[in-house]
């Protein structure tokens, strides 16, 4: 990190990264009249970004209320399928409602490369300057240690601003290497893989019982992750299906699976294969997802800097929410900077603490706090939660639904016995107790 004597800042704020959190931050600050520079290493906003992807309207509405008019949206979600799977079956809880066919739908599937490009065009229209194909290499500090600018791989003089918003993603090198936050740990990030499977829209609509722009989301857990902590997913887009699977990196290191082998077997599962039949694969992506929850959240602010989005570990792994936390943290960071700029107050650690304080009052921190025990519980009990129980549930269902001359009372007995033998009453009580305690 280089040290600089105080010199005139060229911008009111610099945003590192152009994903949902960086775009939200840059958009809000530029809209409020700040002179904003955003720096993105990709050819365009979205070219390095990967997500499932579901867009939660509420978080974006608070930034761009009329986004539906021209944002590239795929399908609005009318049905959620939650599956627990063993090797040959799935047991599902499905919720489908015509109420989701509303004037302003609540959730949409999106393609991030296209969506981020749109969002960033709005950032530029709001007046921000965006430098593409530029990687920020380090922060610049003054003699007191305050962050006062950045250096990039384009060389030349550092670019100066009183505050730097780090929206650099889960693997953000700038903040980690500058010691602003700890290195990401293999136990608190998941490696997720995704493929884009293209099919004619009529085929998707017939396969998933959809009409128009209606969409379905499938979230799955069970033996598909071969005993590792993780989940699989399948989302319907307009003319494609996003299918993927992810597990905690530590589990991958310990286990014997290849990530792509895991994805292949998920795609070939008898419950998934027919949904993808005949499709053409047009992209293969991998990305890390911060899944450590509340306990993994790093220091979020300091003299001249703020952290937003995945770089701050803002993902609710239980509800598969991330982009909405990213946009909300980006927006609130921006509002904090706007407020301090207008009051002509310093971008000091003490003043920027307002950002973290305001976050505490939002769903972001409330939800992460609520589930703070869940990541540890699932990781610690992965053998049960991703193996034993999914298998038992499937066996129970099969025993119950198969008509084979065995009376129902005996079937009930057999089901109870299978649970008791596999996990024991004590084990089950313990799991239930721990789950309830972690869920509260």
């Amino acid at each position, binding site marked *: 990190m280089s040290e600089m004597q105080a010199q005139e800042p060229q911008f009111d704020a610099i945003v590192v990264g152009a994903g949902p959190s960086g775009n939200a931050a840059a958009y809000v600050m530029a809209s409020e009249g700040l002179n904003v520079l955003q720096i993105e*290493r*990709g*050819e365009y906003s*979205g*070219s*390095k*970004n*990967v*997500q499932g*992807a579901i867009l939660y309207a509420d978080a974006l509405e608070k930034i761009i209320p009329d986004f539906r008019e021209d944002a590239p949206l795929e399908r609005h979600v009318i049905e959620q399928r939650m599956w627990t799977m063993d090797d040959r079956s799935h047991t599902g809880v499905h919720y489908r409602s015509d109420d989701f066919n509303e004037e302003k739908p609540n959730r949409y599937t999106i*393609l*991030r*490369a*296209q969506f*981020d490009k749109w969002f960033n065009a709005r950032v530029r229209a709001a007046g921000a300057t965006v430098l*593409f*194909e*530029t*990687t920020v290499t380090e922060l610049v500090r003054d003699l007191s240690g305050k962050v006062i600018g950045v250096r*990039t*791989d*384009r060389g030349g003089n550092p670019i100066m601003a009183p505050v730097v918003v780090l929206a650099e993603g*889960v*693997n953000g*090198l700038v903040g980690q290497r500058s010691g602003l936050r700890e*290195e*990401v*740990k*293999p136990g608190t*990030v998941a*490696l997720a*893989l995704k*493929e*884009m499977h293209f099919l004619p829209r009529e085929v998707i609509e017939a396969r998933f019982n959809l009409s128009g722009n209606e969409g379905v989301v499938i979230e799955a857990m069970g033996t598909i992750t071969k005993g590792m902590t993780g989940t699989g997913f399948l989302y319907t887009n307009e003319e*494609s299906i996003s299918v993927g699977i992810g597990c905690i*990196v530590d589990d*991958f*290191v310990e286990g*014997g*699976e*290849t*990530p*792509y*082998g895991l994805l*292949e077997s998920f795609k070939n599962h008898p419950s998934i294969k027919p949904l993808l039949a005949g499709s053409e*694969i*047009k*992209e*293969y*992506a*991998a*990305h*890390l997802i911060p899944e450590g929850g509340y306990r993994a959240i790093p220091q979020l602010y300091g003299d001249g800097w703020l952290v937003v989005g995945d770089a701050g570990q803002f993902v609710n792994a239980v509800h598969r929410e991330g982009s909405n936390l990213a946009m909300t943290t980006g927006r609130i960071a921006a509002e904090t900077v706007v407020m301090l700029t207008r009051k002509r107050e310093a971008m000091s650690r003490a003043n920027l603490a307002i950002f973290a304080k305001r976050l505490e009052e939002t769903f972001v921190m409330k939800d992460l706090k609520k589930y703070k025990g869940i990541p540890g519980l699932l990781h610690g009990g992965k053998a049960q939660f991703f193996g034993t129980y999914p298998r038992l549930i499937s066996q129970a269902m099969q025993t119950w639904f198969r008509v084979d001359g065995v009376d129902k009372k005996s079937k009930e007995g057999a089901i109870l016995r299978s649970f008791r033998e596999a996990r024991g009453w004590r084990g089950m009580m313990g799991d239930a107790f721990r789950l309830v305690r972690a869920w509260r």
Partner: protein
Amino acid sequence: MSEVAAIKVEEKLFSNRYLVDAGRPHIRVKPHQTPSRGLLAMTRLCPAGCYAQNESGQVEVSADGCVECGTCRIVTQGTGELEWNYPRGGFGVLYKFG
């Protein structure tokens, strides 16, 4: 890594777009005698199959097909075995759908 898995991952990468920064790999493995457990695991774990073990036991990287997930950086943390940077601005994987 089995032969079949190795072929499959290469096939997957064919659908992706890259702008390779020829002669300037963004990940390098430093000279070593015996790879750490984490580095060795990358021969199985890298989603783009960039890592392989040579005949004398060292792990080598060929980062042209890298999808920039960062798993290798995190898994080898603290070992000092990798020199890891993002590609220069504009280079590397270029997602069309993301």
